[in-house]
């Protein structure tokens, strides 16, 4: 299999036996190995949602290649009665549908795992310590799908049926999931349900249950939703009243914009059929952010979404946005770098480059969502912050959060009115007699601005990226330049008080603490639970949710002897950023646990490294 991390040692498994007597209920992982472009997405989604319908906490991860069709792809589903949703290294049930990777896929399994596969692959020859379920997929498919050209797709539903039967998922739950998938398409519904039934019937007749993995009904998913982070962020933007969207397609951010467009078309066409929004597919990311800033300057709530290479291209404009103080929201759904990197693999490696994106003394406000709910909340809050702080605000999500489906509590409606920031109207100007664009009237570092079109002869000011004084006039005078730069520092301090505060996820008065952000959260929580279980060790945990950091971060570091900073990049970027803020005697407390192979971080990796470093 192409992804080494997923393949566990085969050696250790040789002599282990299968123990079907120990039931493993609602706590295992399924991996579906298919060929990219074979249409397995719907089948995988149905399988995931049928477990969800059984009331069992579930998460899914699509591990796909940068390719349209033909290359191998894997979809993993984790059922976890304890609600763990991080990637799990160990695969318990394999559904091997890709002849090319099937041998490697089965060799990667632990002893005692189960494998469902096309009987022609004869995978039994490779493992005698894995429960094998050979299935004649073509034969079953042909019987239920007379139309030959649909068989490639319908074949996938047969494995859903086989798996559902073996794992004892109720057919009613599969049917409910299928209903959601095909909504009003009755013909597709019937055809696919027929395939599911045929698969289940085959399994009932020919495949006696020999593995221990079972789904049993729970009630842990009632009222929950399933959504991907990109759609959640899009919803946040739409409810924040975004009006101008400029973008350039790039994996893995594209679906953020596609979802935004879908929602805008649904909710923001007025009674006369006119749009209260504009979406532009720009010629590149430079143009996308230029449009965002032009629109933000002229009063619109504007956004773009991109990934690493796009962030690099946005550097110059980001500095202009910072220095000329123009609002705008930039979603960065991180993928691996450097350069093109692995476009369909996840990482948290844009943190440093985004924090200081652009030349000169530039720094940016960054929000760090750690769940789909926060994608929504921060997607919304970013617009308030951008206009309040008059600066570009970056929302750093990642491929794992953005493109995978996650279970979540439903999102709460943001009932507070939108914060449009300090904008002077013509009436204000009549009262004030004029204004200085970059004067710190309120002492918070944030000036007052006017929008183009304000009907007052003194409304206009000159926006520029060149040196300017408090009246927005060109300057090369040292004092005037320093005054502006120091006010920007004050503004960044104000930002500390406005951005989402860190969350103290665990506080037991322990000596050791963990700091993490974004998607590392799921694995950190699981790892710390295990640490407590296995080693009776308590570890505190602070999840940072934004840059600049606020005082709570300093206090957390100060009140612990050692801090492990867990993050998904090679260069310890969060730790580096923290060290810039911390006093020298505090900075030395930081140690790093890093994960950067393109796969989402898992609890086992954190746990083992922490245990070694703590000498456990």
């Amino acid at each position, binding site marked *: 299999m192409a992804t080494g991390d997923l393949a566990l040692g085969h050696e250790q498994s040789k002599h282990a036996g299968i123990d079907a007597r120990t039931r493993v209920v609602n706590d295992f992982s399924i991996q579906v190995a298919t060929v990219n472009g074979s249409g397995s997405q719907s089948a995988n989604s149905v399988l995931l949602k049928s477990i969800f319908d059984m009331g069992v906490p579930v998460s899914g991860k699509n591990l796909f290649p940068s390719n349209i069709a033909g290359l191998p792809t894997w979809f993993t589903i984790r059922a976890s009665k304890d609600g763990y949703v991080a990637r799990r290294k160990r695969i318990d049930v394999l559904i091997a549908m890709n002849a090319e990777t099937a041998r490697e896929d089965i060799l990667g399994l632990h002893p005692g795992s189960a494998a469902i596969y096309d009987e022609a692959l004869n995978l039994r020859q490779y493992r005698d310590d894995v429960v094998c379920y050979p299935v004649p997929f073509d034969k079953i498919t042909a019987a239920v799908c007379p139309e030959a050209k649909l068989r490639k797709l319908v074949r996938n539903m047969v494995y859903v049926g086989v798996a559902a039967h073996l794992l004892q998922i109720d057919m009613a739950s599969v049917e409910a999931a299928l209903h959601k998938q095909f909504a009003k398409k009755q013909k597709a519904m019937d055809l696919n349900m027929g395939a599911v039934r045929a698969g289940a019937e085959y399994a009932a007749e020919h495949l006696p249950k020999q593995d221990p993995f079972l789904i049993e009904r729970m009630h842990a998913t009632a009222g929950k*939703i399933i959504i991907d982070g990109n759609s959640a962020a899009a*919803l946040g933007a739409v409810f924040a009243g975004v009006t101008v969207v400029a973008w350039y397609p790039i994996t893995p951010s594209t679906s953020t914009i596609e979802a935004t467009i879908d929602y805008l078309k649904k909710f923001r066409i007025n009674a006369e059929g006119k749009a*209260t929004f504009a979406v532009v597919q720009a010629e590149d990311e430079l143009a996308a952010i230029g449009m965002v800033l*032009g*629109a933000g300057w002229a009063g619109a709530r504007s956004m773009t979404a991109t990934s690493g290479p796009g962030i690099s291209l946005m550097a110059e404009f980001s500095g202009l946005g910072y220095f000329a103080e123009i609002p705008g929201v930039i979603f960065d759904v991180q993928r691996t770098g450097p350069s093109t990197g692995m476009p369909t693999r996840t990482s948290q490696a844009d943190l440093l480059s985004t924090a200081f994106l652009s030349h000169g003394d530039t720094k940016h406000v960054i929000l760090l969502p750690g769940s789909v709910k926060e994608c929504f909340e921060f997607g919304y809050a970013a617009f308030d912050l951008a206009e309040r702080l008059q600066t570009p605000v970056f929302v750093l999500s990642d491929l794992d959060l953005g493109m995978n489906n996650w279970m979540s509590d439903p*999102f709460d409606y943001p009932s507070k009115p939108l914060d449009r920031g300090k904008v002077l109207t013509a009436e204000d100007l009549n009262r004030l007699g004029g204004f200085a664009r970059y004067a710190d009237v309120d002492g918070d570092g944030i000036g007052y601005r006017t929008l183009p079109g304000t009907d007052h002869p003194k409304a206009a000011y000159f926006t520029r*990226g060149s040196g300017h004084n408090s009246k927005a006039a060109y300057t090369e005078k040292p004092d005037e330049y320093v005054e502006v730069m120091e006010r920007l520092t004050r503004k960044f301090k104000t930002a500390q008080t406005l951005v989402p505060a860190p969350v103290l996820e665990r506080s037991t008065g322990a000596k050791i603490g963990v700091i993490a952000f974004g998607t590392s959260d799921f694995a950190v929580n699981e790892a710390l639970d295990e640490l407590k279980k296995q080693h009776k060790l308590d570890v505190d945990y602070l999840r940072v949710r934004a840059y600049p950091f606020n005082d709570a971060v300093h206090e957390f570091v100060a009140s612990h002897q050692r801090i492990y900073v867990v993050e998904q990049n090679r260069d310890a970027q969060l730790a580096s950023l923290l060290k810039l803020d911390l006093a020298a005697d505090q900075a030395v407390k930081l140690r790093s646990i890093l994960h950067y192979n393109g796969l989402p971080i898992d609890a086992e990796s954190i746990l083992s490294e922490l245990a070694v470093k703590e000498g456990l």
Partner: protein
Amino acid sequence: MATATATPTGTPGPKINRIGLPVIEYRGGKTTLCAGCGHNAISERVVDALFEMGVQPERVMKLSGIGCSSKSPAYFLSRAHSFNSVHGRMPSVATGAVLANHTMMALGVSGDGDTASIGMGQFVHMMRRNLPMIYIIEDNGVYGLTKGQFSATADIGSKLKTGVINDLPPIDTCAMAIQLGATFVGRSFSGDKKQLLSMLKAAIAHKGTVMLDVISPCVTFNDHEGSTKSYKFMQEHDEPINELGFVPSFEEIDVEYDAGTTTEVTMHDGSHLRLRKLREDYDPTDKVASVRTLMEAHENGEVLTGVFFVDTVKPSFTDLLNLVDQPLGTQPESVTKPSAEVLQKVMASLQ
């Protein structure tokens, strides 16, 4: 309807325009460009055009990139918001600004380096979109602020002060703009007050991308013998393809014209642009022919000026986007923020 130059009665005061403003309300800061720079003359014509058209200064957004040309928005119309952006990227900023407020007039000033070198990517896409704005290239064939390197509009054989000869072909921004979809394209010369003023007034009346390439000699780095963008060269080689007559919507048409020698174009706001042919059979509504004429002129070493192409039918970018009438930027929250019920429905669909 008020006339362009209302005659004050009683005590003589400053001349005021149809919205009651004197020309001084259209002026800007003191120029910091070189004395004699063509750009200053263009700024003056912009002031005249906005004044004579009676444009409310607050209804204009000025945009520019980086370079000598891009400084010039500081030297006219102080009462309008202005955005001096980054090098070569004014089109994107203008696009965003126009989308945020499509009820305003956007006036962009760029240079030949800012447009035809670093800015080519954004320039061509703006032309393609037919974004409603006026885009002026103050074209002198050299980089001024970095002391006189050739730009991409410099002609083959043109000579720098240092004696360096340009051996790469120039980019014809007008031919390119026409081909890509701009709907009002012309070339003028900063020294031709009358032609430039008429062209700017017609530009104000147009809805869609107006692309004006204005040859604007650089007195410091490109006004010497051997330059093809010098005052002298332009005075000798400027070949107007048509003579412009512009009658704004608020003035009566009182002179007849000969349809055989003149093309009349009715602009979006009801103004009339009359283009008297100086070259036989030149039709400024024929896209293919206009590009052909420009290419032939290059072959013959001519510098054509005039309005090369007008299309008042093609929808602008904001038309295509089907926007509401009011600016997007100031739409009230009641319009832009969907209700709690909407969110509830979305949540239910995800359960």
